[in-house]
């Protein structure tokens, strides 16, 4: 009995090294019932850029790309460019100097920022500097959920969107920031610059 098994296994090992063109006879396991999309675990077909972001070139017009600012306005640039934000002021908008000025916004009239939102702001800034603009936007949106009326957060969101080439959104966020900005004139000026820049790139 045991000998037979050993023999079979032996044969099977010998033969399986050679031939590969035999076909399965049993119906495939459940995972295949949905057709050829599955297998290999690749998900590239599922990936969608956020709003036709800097990645959009790679994907052509995938379904996800249509979502969209176009829901609200179809004038979103289809092939956004990386707007060099450094043009906007002496330094980049999120660079140390200006950020510090806004972080201490209590003296400039706007509400002070809590530690939680501030930690997210810092995270978003490092994401932005590392070129992860989508991630920075996501982090800022999380911060906005915590402090939905903090003008600095809306300003940063405007900034990230501008850099992504989403001029329309940048204008909206910057305007919203200014509405919450109270007497923080420097922040309002910064928003105005974002709006100018966005309008000129449309």
């Amino acid at each position, binding site marked *: 009995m045991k000998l037979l098994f050993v023999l*079979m296994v032996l044969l099977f090992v010998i033969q399986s090294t050679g031939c590969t063109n035999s*076909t399965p006879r049993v119906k495939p396991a459940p995972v295949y019932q949905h057709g050829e999309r599955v297998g290999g675990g690749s998900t590239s077909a599922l990936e969608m850029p956020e709003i036709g972001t800097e990645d959009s070139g790679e994907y052509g017009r995938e379904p996800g790309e249509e979502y969209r600012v176009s829901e*609200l306005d179809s004038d979103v640039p289809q092939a956004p460019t990386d707007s060099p934000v450094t043009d906007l002021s002496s330094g980049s908008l999120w660079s140390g100097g200006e950020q510090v000025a806004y972080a201490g916004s209590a003296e400039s009239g706007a509400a002070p920022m809590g530690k939680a939102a501030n930690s997210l702001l810092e995270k978003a800034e490092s994401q932005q500097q590392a070129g992860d603009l989508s991630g920075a936007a996501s982090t800022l949106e999380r911060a906005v959920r915590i402090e939905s009326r903090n003008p600095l957060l809306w300003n940063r969101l405007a900034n990230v969107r501008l850099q992504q080439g989403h001029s329309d959104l940048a204008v909206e966020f910057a305007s919203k920031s200014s509405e919450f900005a109270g007497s923080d004139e420097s922040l309002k000026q910064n928003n105005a610059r974002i709006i100018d820049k966005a309008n000129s790139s449309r």
Partner: protein
Amino acid sequence: MLILLFIAAVPLGTYMMQLSDEITTSFEGKRWAVPARVYSRSMELYSGAPVSMERLVSELKYLGYRKVSQPDSTGTWAMNGGRLLLRSRPFTFWDGAEPERALDIRVAAGKIKSVMNHETGKEIDLVRLEPLEIGSIYPRDNEDRVILTPDDIPEMLKKSLITIEDRSYYDHFGIDPRGITRAAVSTLVKGRRQGGSTITQQLVKNYFLTPRRDLKRKSKEALMAIILDAKYDKEDILAAYANEIYLGQDGNREIHGFGLASEFFFGVPIAELEIHQIALMVGLIKAPSTYNPRRNPKNALKRRNLVLDVLAEQGVISEGSAAVAKKKSLGVVKKKSTGQGGRFPAFMDLVKRQLRRDYQPEDLTSEGLHIFTTMDPWVQKTAESNVLKRLQQLEKQKGLPKGKLEVAAIIATPQDGEVLAVIGGRKAGYAGFNRALDATRQIGSLVKPAVYLTALQYPDSYSLSTPLDDSKVVLHNRGSKSWSPSNYDHKSHGNVPLELALAKSYNQATVRLGMDIGVERVVKTLHALGMSSEPDPLPSLLLGAVNMTPLEVTQLYQTIASGGYRSPLRAIREVMGPGDKALKRYPLIIKRTVPAGPVYLLSRAMQSVVTRGTSRYLLNALPKSLNLAGKTGTTDNLRDSWFAGFSSDYVTVVWVGRDDNKPAGLSGSSGALRVWADMMKPLKSSPLDLVVPGTIEMARVDPKSGMLFNPVCGGNGVEKPFLRGYTPYEEAYCDSDYLMAPVPAQRSSNQVARPGRGSRDSDGHPDFNGDSWDNSRSRSSKKSNDGLGGFLRGIFE
């Protein structure tokens, strides 16, 4: 003899090779269709977070955290002198991993006072708890599972499995000849069938084969088991078994694998299971239905204790710990989900419709996506429980037939349009007709804010204090009967300030106002606010003869609540794929669609609805300091009862009525408003603090005439906001008879602005330009067969 054997072995070997190929293709690809898992938002803990102790503890309960005296393992918490000590679970979000943490949380006055690391005593800026799983989207074969890697499976579970199911697992080569012999003898001699299957054979049987029990299939099973064992690691096969095995039923849904079973029966991740729970699950394998701990707890207990005895007998656990475990109750949690909708079918419905747009059904049911939604379990649950109570109370109070009142509601955030809760009907856990998304009903007076908002964009004619004529109005349409709407109280109220006419919801004044500015303009405003349909611009529209779903109404009021920025309502934030890869974001999008100044004025008038209009009930039901804004809506013969309103944190719409469209016997304020208040009360919102746009200035006016306050006449006058440059410039006459003169139906005369003083915003543009943004383009182009419905398509596309 040997030669004979060899000859027999050749075709057998060929056959085995074919089987081998089959196994390889299945086993080395993706082994299962992995259903998408849908999560709620996650609770953010930070100093100042609006989280009361009650809310925090509820969240921990939803998440299946256990209250203990010393929280030293994940998923446990304790109270210690007013501090909540918590050992959080690690969780991987789309934007990174949140590690396991020992937290020390203090709560005071309904807010989190501090969050500290319990071990280091250091303050932590921000922590996210893991989100609550609110459902899964599984394929048509109804198999639902959570995949475990070999490392995910607790050692104790592995040992117990092997001890109970296949003691020689690590020694045999896929089949166990001694076991087979034993089974064969038993079957032949005692006439009793006995299983001699190894774990490998059981896996083969469940995974590759049909459940027939004949010799041919048995032999094939044995051969495949041998091949599987020869080709793959024992640990890998054991993990596959642990993921494949069927362990229970939840309606149509089949519970497969220990990963899901742990959540399903005990409400905790598998890593947190104790020995008595492991024993219960291992015991289930033999007969998941017979030993179902919810339906047959006695059988289950007996079986579990038998398993514990065997484990002790085999030295897997000590006699002592077996004795302790046997004393424990089954530890099974109440069943949380039923069918595809999970615990929150109405919300899941919205999620699925949004997903359907971007994903193929098979992606959702097979790719193991993680879907992070905007749902707030606390908001959803408290809303659900309060709604039913109030409906029953209303039926009793008003002598209405029992069980006929239906309800729908949406709670969303004003600034970013995230949907926090969806109520689809009075039976919250029941996945039936989703009224919040699919019931299109006349909105009645909920349309009025759009009428007034339109008027307020013509500041040379209308301000909050402009007197409106509320006398009887008769409209003649060519070819049809004349139309003469009356007020709710069937009275005329003479000249009333615009603000009060909205607050009191006067129909006659509103129709006159709407006819003056033009129904087409009102339709345009409705589109700017977020309406998706194209209603005929008939006068009856001014009183709400237009059908919308509660969701669509929520969109309209979100735009108002955010000061004129429309955000397409969203139920999903992110989708994460296998390997924790972020696949798709649904980002925050805002667009100013109505000008800030007029929206501010409208919001002030909507606050008057609460302070002196149709919604004064709220002044007692909720703190006055909330400064809530809203509007009631009632349709003919009390068929529909609506209330839509907002605070700074929530914009909430409630509909109450009957499915058969018979009169429900409730006005907006006697029905929906009550439900609204009950839903909002536990949420402890912060007060509505309207941002005053730069285009607004204040002026002291005579409350009756709306003209500038005249100190000569005595009294104090009232401070009212106006669009800059459009404050009244004529002082009031002291002779109040002046007021009795009806205001002409055309542009009113007593409020003409000074020439050249028109309001400009900071960019020098008029603040109130008439062509507010209109979304007709996206509205007309799409045809339906995606199940979204006009409005949802409008949002999601």
